[in-house]
């Protein structure tokens, strides 16, 4: 297991508004979101229902929708919004420093 740490993920402009990109770190995969207001959020990379990649899903406002079964989560809090999404997503803290997005992986 890697120690808890801030990792540099990408440049701010690498993620469109209201969109999501994948990133890997130490064997784990994650999803990085940019909200309509430009702020960044991060969650685990796969849906808690059937392991589809969330980066292939559609971001609508504060919601990420799984590409397979349309399970919905609030990516800001990880909250599952109803069947088939029952289990919340893990979320990770983010910060932006000098045009780079950092995520705290614990």
């Amino acid at each position, binding site marked *: 297991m890697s120690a808890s740490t801030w990792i540099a993920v990408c440049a*701010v*402009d690498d993620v469109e*508004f*209201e969109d999501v990109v994948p990133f890997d770190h130490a064997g784990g995969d994650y999803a990085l979101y940019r909200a*309509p207001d430009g702020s960044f959020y991060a969650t685990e990379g796969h849906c808690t229902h059937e392991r589809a*990649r969330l980066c*292939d*899903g559609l971001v609508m406002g504060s919601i990420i929708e799984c590409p397979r079964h349309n399970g919905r989560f609030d990516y800001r809090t990880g909250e599952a919004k109803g069947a088939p999404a029952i289990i919340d997503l893990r979320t990770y803290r983010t910060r932006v420093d000098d045009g780079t997005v950092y995520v705290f992986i614990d």
Partner: protein
Amino acid sequence: MGRRIVVIGGGECGTRAALALRACGFDGPISVVDSDPFAPYERPPLSKAALGDATAGPPGGGVLGSLRSASIEFVYGRIEAIDRRAGRVLFEGRREMSYDRLLIATGARASSLSVPGGEHALRLRTWQDVLRLRDQLQPGMTAVVIGGGFLGLEIAACAALRGCSVTVLEQAFHVLERLVPASIASVVAARHRRERVDIRCGARVAAVRRAGRRFAVEVHDSDAFVADVVIAAVGARPNTDLAGAAGLRTEAGIVVDSRFATSDGAIFAAGDCCSFPLPFADCARLRLESWRNAVDQGDAAALALLGASRPYTAVPWFWSDQYDLTLQIAGVPSLGAREVLRVREDGVEIRFDLASDGRLVSASAIGEGDSVAKDIRLAVLAIGRGSCPSSVDLADPARPLRAVLLNDGAHARRNDEAQRIRR
């Protein structure tokens, strides 16, 4: 609002409706009835992972637990009749159950192969069918799949991955005819050929004969194909018998209105078994067989059972997995008058169909994994909104699809201004 709701059918639609009833606050008794001893389970994996993996159990094992924790009774039994006058369903063996509101979600069954010897062909619809097929499809076996639709091709892919030598016999001129555009069908066919699946189009099966311990599939104007296993995937028929015998209107399915009510106001029908009017298609009647349709209609029927009056407007959406490829279709391609192709930077083609008045009516694409999911999901939203996207913009991969389809100027502007944002 009815005091007791009975749901006939423990498939995706029926279980989903039962859970949605609870989620909407209905606190009366709910019973879901099914005669399948393995129910409830999820059906899409039956022709995918569950068929390929020799040890997997019935998929979606959590459903029963969800029903129980929502205090929904799951009853194993075969219903033989609906007594509309008394408001009750009659089981095999004299048992009965009364209802105030009834939802028929009986689904569909696999059509049989209607040629001499057709009974030798195995079919795939239930978990028991999966167990039988997994037992038969051993490495080195020769399998003939009759029918080059989605189900037949998914079975062919599983059989090939299990080490069988596979031939697909399709009577039309290409696989997936009338289901997807020819360009997508050719990608699917090419992928199958790479896995050494022998696809024969224009092959009309005349008979299936026993040939010792094997079978011979006789085809018009061709030599026979000898196989260890013969599988028929030649479509499905809606289970309308109960409804028909009870005097409810049935055509190519149980006829319902835009709120899933049958010709009896206390009885509703949804999912594969029903024929419903689709608003965005000028209320043309449709019967759809897909997971998404079962889910959407189950949710909507629950609201209708509780008296909601909003008509059903969900846009049809379908996917099929073939090896590492997933194809997706949104809307109804046959409503299109004109097609527009968008070739993405990764080479994937998204095909859009526009009606004569310019409205988007369908989008379809095939790609690795879920790589086309986001674009097709945007199309679903656009079709639902009645969007009339510019065909020039649609065809231009440099134009963000979200803005083109949803005419979401704000989204495009925000990204144009992205440089100025620093936090």
